[in-house]
């Protein structure tokens, strides 16, 4: 068996999610190559070559891949990947965008968002917002799979010494072009890989009040998330949404503040090791999954939390 892992990156650094995808590839077993497609992405290729368990890094460095357009990546990966038994990527928004194109071009099914590998052709994935867990067997000769990074402990980032090979396959479908982007600038840890996440919901009332959470997050080195209601209300940007249709997180500690605990929200955080809920309604469903629940007004509890943490840390 031979597995092609598509690296997730921003042209300058390798996303940690890729290390989790390599871990999933190791669980399948076989030779693991990593494809780095981007523009001026040599540093990413270098980082990928150091990852544990990688045999070879293929680099497709071209302007056509600079913005990870799904049409171009789809054609590239379908071409490079057709010699492999498995093609894997993370289930981030980039992987979700191009991988189904790869599957369609190869005329095979895709298995989305796996959280476990049972064997080379059998995978475990949540359905119905995590309310059911399906074990699925794929019969196609090439398995196209997206991996939920929180399901797999990342392989070591250092220690490997894979060879690096340039490939000059240029696929520019000419169907789409990049216009612009609005990146949420923040020095905080990435939500998906943060060890601690503190999230606010509709109970926060407005965007300014999220500053209270920021102060706590700064003390804990935490990432900040939100419920859909908080994003829809415009308190915070969309990339902070945790849940079925937002980001999936599984930190050591998840603190939900003013969040009721709708199933769609729980789908994004119920694999966290320890869950804390702060809510003034003792009937809120979030308490049914919380290891530690505090029934309190958040506008009193969060400032107190900041004070207590200053003392304790």
């Amino acid at each position: 068996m031979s597995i092609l892992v598509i690296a997730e990156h921003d042209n300058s650094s390798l996303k940690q999610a890729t290390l989790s995808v390599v871990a999933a590839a190791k669980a399948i077993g076989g030779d693991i190559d990593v494809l780095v497609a981007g523009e001026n992405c040599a540093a990413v290729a270098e980082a990928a070559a150091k990852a544990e368990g990688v045999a070879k890094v293929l680099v497709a460095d071209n302007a056509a891949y600079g913005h990870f357009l799904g049409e171009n990546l789809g054609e590239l990966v379908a071409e490079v990947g057709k010699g492999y038994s498995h093609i894997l990527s993370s289930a981030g928004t980039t992987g979700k965008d191009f991988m189904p194109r790869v599957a369609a071009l190869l005329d095979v099914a895709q298995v989305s968002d796996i959280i476990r590998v049972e064997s080379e052709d059998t995978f475990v994935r949540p359905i119905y917002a995590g309310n059911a867990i399906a074990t699925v067997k794929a019969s196609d000769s090439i398995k196209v799979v997206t991996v939920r990074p929180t399901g797999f402990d990342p392989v070591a980032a250092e220690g490997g010494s894979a060879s690096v090979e340039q490939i000059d396959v240029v696929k520019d479908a000419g169907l789409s072009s990049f216009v612009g982007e609005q990146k949420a600038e923040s020095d905080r840890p990435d939500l998906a890989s943060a060890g601690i996440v503190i999230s606010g919901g509709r109970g926060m009332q407005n965007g300014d009040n999220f500053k209270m959470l920021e102060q706590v997050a700064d003390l804990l080195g935490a990432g900040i998330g939100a419920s859909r209601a908080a994003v829809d209300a415009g308190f915070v940007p969309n990339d902070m949404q945790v849940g079925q249709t937002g980001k999936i997180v599984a930190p050591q500690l998840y603190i939900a503040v003013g969040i009721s605990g709708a199933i769609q929200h729980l789908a994004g955080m119920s694999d966290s090791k320890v869950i804390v809920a702060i809510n003034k309604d003792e009937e809120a469903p979030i308490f049914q999954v919380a290891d530690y629940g505090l029934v309190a007004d958040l506008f009193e509890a969060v400032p107190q939390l900041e004070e207590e943490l200053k003392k304790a840390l």
Partner: protein
Amino acid sequence: MKVLVAVKRVIDYNVKVRVKPDNTGVDLANVKMAMNPFCEIAVEEAVRLKEKGIASEIVVVSIGPKACQEQIRTALALGADRGIHIEADGDVQSLDAAKLLKAVVEKEEPKLVILGKQSIDSDNNQTGQMLAALTGMGQGTFASEVVVDGEKVNVTREVDGGLMTLSLNLPAVVTTDLRLNEPRYASLPNIMKAKKKPLDTMSAADLGVEIASRLTTLKVEAPAGRSAGVKVADVAELVDKLKNEAKVI
């Protein structure tokens, strides 16, 4: 221009999903079904394009058992003009859904195809992208804004780091994210009118597509589940527990 919208019949998002005791799937007997929420957003976007004078006709298509004509009627009540029901009783997986939709695209030649980004049952997030690849169209996935501009469409997408805007040649495929719009409710008169709108039924064979399951679900289980922990009296106790009991800070 003509807009094609794909809508899927799924379990209502408010329903508490239960796994069948024999682990073969999820219990759908006597469960409330509804249009997939992302598909409602897709229909709404098409209707708004029509109200702006950009769309001339909205065709809505659904693949599934006879009952999914209910969701087509809902879309017609919301403002779509015409329905196509592709009858399929068993499990229609994403690639086959995409092949069927491709056949409809070839017949109807829409300028824009709008789908939901994912259906809330299988959570696959595949069909739109597969359709785009099979028809050689560009794709604007997870859209939060769609602006048609002559022979192009600009799509702003919700991506991991924030927002990203693409320009796509038409025809193109767009998949909807939550913040694209807030769908309206159908009014009673419109529900009545929808009953008279045309609805064609066809089979996969009519479209020349063979349905082949490539994925077999071996079992479906309930998640491990978490049990409620303890309530703490105050913030001081909370911090103490996190530090000394759970040891996570």
